[in-house]
């Protein structure tokens, strides 16, 4: 177990002409489970590979347990990694796969047997120890890959999208197994994924990364607990990335600012209230108002509603999503309803956007503080 500290980490593949990662600062505490999440190309896997030593660190400082390990080769860092592709040694049996690292370290046979046996027991692999990887299913292979890192008793576990090659049912099952494993071993873990459900359910803290924009200072968008990211996203990117379906965004300007409540006038002329603190912003400045599909109320008007036309319907049984059109909307306007009543495509309905569920972002995308959202324990 160990603390991992990243200070001003940056990565460039072409001597500083273009940057993949810039100015990443993170403190990962002992025993914490951290998830890196972001869209493809945001550098989350690269960051993970830099921590385990498979990629060079262009600049910045990486320390594990207080020791600067920037220039240590991967075999000396004592980290364990689970690859997306499993990367099992095909010519070795399950037991040999798991014992490989210990044998390289010239561990005693009794120690090897004990640790392999223990890992096999935890992961329910006892019956498969003599099998070769090709005779196993995807889920079993991934369990072996996890077992291979367990036996090494690494200071940090690194998971590089370990479940994305599995089918949905198996993914859910393996997710729970990883959670169980972490509760049991309490080893510091870093988990890279593009699946926010995995991140939300597994992680103590989530690190949201974005593809580095031209001239941006950093692509680290926000670090926080899962629900903190959901209720208090730091900016437009995080707000749009966390939550499924995506948050709806309306363009508008502040009509009346305030400490508890803000009036926003959409470009269509409609005025909406939002429970956010805009005391530091000026009336008339451009803002983006956001609301999640699950917080909209269709065919309701409590005084904070907009009109829209139904474009399409998605009925999922337990819930339905109405795709609407509205003149000030960015990308899409999705309304979630629980009933599956028949609604006409093309008809107009009114949708209530409750003020306490509204988010507000300034022209740079930075979020205003929400005044009525649940507080998250720090």
């Amino acid at each position, binding site marked *: 177990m160990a603390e991992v500290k990243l200070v001003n980490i940056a990565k460039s593949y072409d001597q500083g002409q273009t940057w993949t990662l810039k100015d990443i600062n993170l403190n990962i505490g002992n025993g914490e489970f951290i998830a890196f999440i972001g869209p493809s190309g945001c550098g989350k896997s690269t960051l993970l590979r830099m921590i*385990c*030593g*498979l990629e060079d660190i262009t600049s910045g400082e990486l320390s594990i347990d207080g020791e600067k390990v920037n220039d240590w*080769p*991967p*075999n*000396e860092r*004592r*980290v*364990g*990694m689970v*690859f*997306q*592709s*499993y*990367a*099992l*040694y*095909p*010519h070795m049996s399950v037991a040999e796969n798991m014992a*490989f*690292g210990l044998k*390289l*370290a010239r561990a005693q046979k009794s120690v090897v047997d004990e640790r392999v046996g223990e890992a096999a027991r935890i992961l329910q692999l006892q019956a498969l120890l003599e099998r*070769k*990887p*090709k*005779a*196993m299913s*995807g889920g079993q*292979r991934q369990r072996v*890959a996890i077992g*291979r*890192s367990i036996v*090494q008793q690494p200071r940090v576990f690194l998971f590089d999208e370990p479940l994305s*090659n599995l089918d949905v049912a198996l993914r859910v099952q393996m997710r729970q197994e990883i959670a169980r494993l972490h509760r049991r071993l309490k080893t510091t873990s870093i988990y890279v994924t593009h699946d926010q459900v995995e991140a939300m359910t597994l992680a103590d803290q989530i690190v949201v990364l974005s593809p580095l924009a031209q001239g941006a200072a950093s692509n680290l968008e926000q670090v926080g607990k899962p629900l903190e990211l959901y209720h208090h996203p730091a900016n437009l990117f995080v707000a749009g990335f966390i939550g499924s379906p995506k948050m709806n965004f309306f363009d508008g300007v502040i009509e009346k600012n305030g400490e508890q409540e803000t009036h926003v006038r959409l470009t269509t002329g409609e005025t909406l209230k939002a429970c956010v603190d805009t005391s530091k912003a000026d009336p008339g400045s451009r803002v983006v108002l956001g609301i999640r599909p699950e917080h909209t109320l269709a065919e309701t008007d409590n005084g904070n509603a907009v009109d829209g036309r139904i474009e399409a319907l998605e009925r999922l049984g337990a819930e339905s999503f109405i795709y609407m059109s509205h003149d000030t909307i960015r990308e899409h306007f999705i309304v979630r309803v629980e009933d599956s009543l028949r609604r006409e495509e093309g008809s107009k309905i009114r949708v209530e956007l409750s003020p306490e569920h509204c988010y507000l972002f300034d022209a740079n995308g930075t979020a205003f503080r929400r005044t009525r959202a649940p507080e998250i324990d720090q």
Partner: protein
Amino acid sequence: MPGIIFLNHKDTKTQRKPFLFAERSSGKPGIIFLNHKDTKTQRKPFLFAERSSGKPIKNFVSLCLCGSHLFKAFRNTLRAWARDERSHTGEVIMAMVQPRNLQYRVWTGRIVMWLFLLLILFPFFMIISVSLRTGNFATGSLIPENPSLEHWYLALGIPWENADGSITQPPFPVLTWLWNSIKVAFTSSALILILATTGAYAFARLRFRFKQQMLTAMMILQMFPAVLALVAIYSLFDQIGDYIPWLGLDRLGSVTLAYLGGMALHIWLIKGYFETIDNSLEEAAAIDGATPWQAFRFVLLPLSVPILAVVFILAFIASIAEYPVASVLLQSMDNLTLAVGSRQYLNPQNYLWGDFAAAAVLSGLPISIIFLACQRWIVGGLTSGGVKG
């Protein structure tokens, strides 16, 4: 115990034609083939046999032809049966469709293969025939009229007593030549294997300047046959010999070293194979605590055994058969390789075809042995299962 029944009429449910059924038979294991005609085409099923109550399957050829299908079906049946005895009763395991013209196709294929084989084998039989003829004649019938072991005795270094009582001494040290050939071929192939493997690793996995240029240069240089450089090779080893005697002219060391020059092709071959092995395996090894050398030795090399065996065989054959370079570098009778030595039998006025043929067959011996020894390493599918495809 389930049996297997081949039916060639339509399945009542699916209306598909021939099916392989698994059925619980009356406690007896066995394969049961029925001889029903197809209801529509009135054709007999391709596979037929009586009930397997101890009687042999009649059409054995047809059984062999669909052997793998049959084996898989039988295995699946047994597996299904092992899982749950009841659930599969009467269940359709797999469709067995045997088109009628399959038989003709198979026979045509066989005939072509035999013709092809004859084409390859004929020269070989000729050489054996020549080596067993009395006297030294290149032409004659394929089966010698009065066979004699004369040439074989002489090739193996045993004096031969002629019919008139005179003794012919072996003219040349053929076994010494053979031994020289084996030494050179084995040493050079082993060195080629070691250097080409490590070189290919560098080209496949490491990043360094001029990598692409070096690869291209190797490829281009390899296109010129070594014969073009004979003069250069001769004078080079002449010079080297002044400083390192065992690498000089007329020493086997020089030939061995010269043969290493053919390595570029092998580097390309092995590099191509290495590139098919997922890099993440070595990365996993590195995280498991392996140094780059250990990752190479314990992960990459064991997975590359098939290509290493191929390269070893190719290098071995090439150096056993090589003539021009060896003929220039080697001079004294006891230092020749078999390929060069055999030429001694063919004097302008006196072609000793029989002795030559015996020596030629001998030179094939080490190649065959190496090939048989390496064959078990040439297998596919070594890397399957390691990474998700």
